[in-house]
């Protein structure tokens, strides 16, 4: 697993690219829909980019949990732990 801060920066980079924002302006707990202007289709675009960047499989239900950069990192870490458990 990559360092949490590295993951967080990558996540914020993806959000910034999709939402056309400056990554440095995105707080770790900024609300995607209410503070960053992320709508549902942008959310799906972020989900697809996360899948590409981190090699994970996410679904629409998990999109509902992707409300802040920190929540996304937790989701990705949870995914990795689940995969590790299944493979052990």
């Amino acid at each position, binding site marked *: 697993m990559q360092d949490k801060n590295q993951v967080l920066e990558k996540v914020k980079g993806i959000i910034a690219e999709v939402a056309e924002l400056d990554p440095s302006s995105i707080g770790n707990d900024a609300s*995607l*829909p*209410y503070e960053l202007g992320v*709508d*549902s*289709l942008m*959310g*799906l*675009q972020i989900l*697809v980019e996360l899948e590409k960047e981190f090699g994970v499989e996410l679904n*629409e239900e998990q*999109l*509902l949990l992707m*409300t802040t950069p920190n929540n996304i990192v937790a989701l990705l870490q949870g995914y990795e732990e689940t995969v590790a458990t299944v493979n052990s």
Partner: protein
Amino acid sequence: MTCLLSQNQIKQLIPHRYPILILDEILEYTPSKRILAYAYLGSDEQVFRGHFPSFPILPGVFLVEGLAQASSVFLELNHQAWNPGNELIPNPGNGMLGVLGSAETRFKHPVFPDSEVFFEAVTTREFSNSLFMKVRAYYGDKTFVSGTISVTKVHQKVLARNSDYETIY
């Protein structure tokens, strides 16, 4: 290639009408995977009168719109679990619209009046109300535009609010 769906049947699936309805026919459809649509763009199309009077070519956005319409038909057919030969369920007009969400496209050749255009869209990622598609408009070995688009079904009230936070979060 045979016609799977005529323009009248396309009109049952998407709300687009003249002068923006571009597709004439659906030629091929593989559920959740691919759609191929066709249009003939005659010299009498209004858009050619203004773009440009001395040198008529189809605006690139019309090609992207054609690809979005093909993708919207595809989304509707997928929702109906339609297969060739099945009856269509006309879109009930419940206010849901298939709209273009994003487009990353490259324009390669102009489309002149009296051209035939095939619109192909292949699914790269499918969600319940949204699709990410790899798309291409072409004729023969000439590609007019290619790229990726996303389309989504949203309620017109959401579009009117210019926000769909409440539909997702």
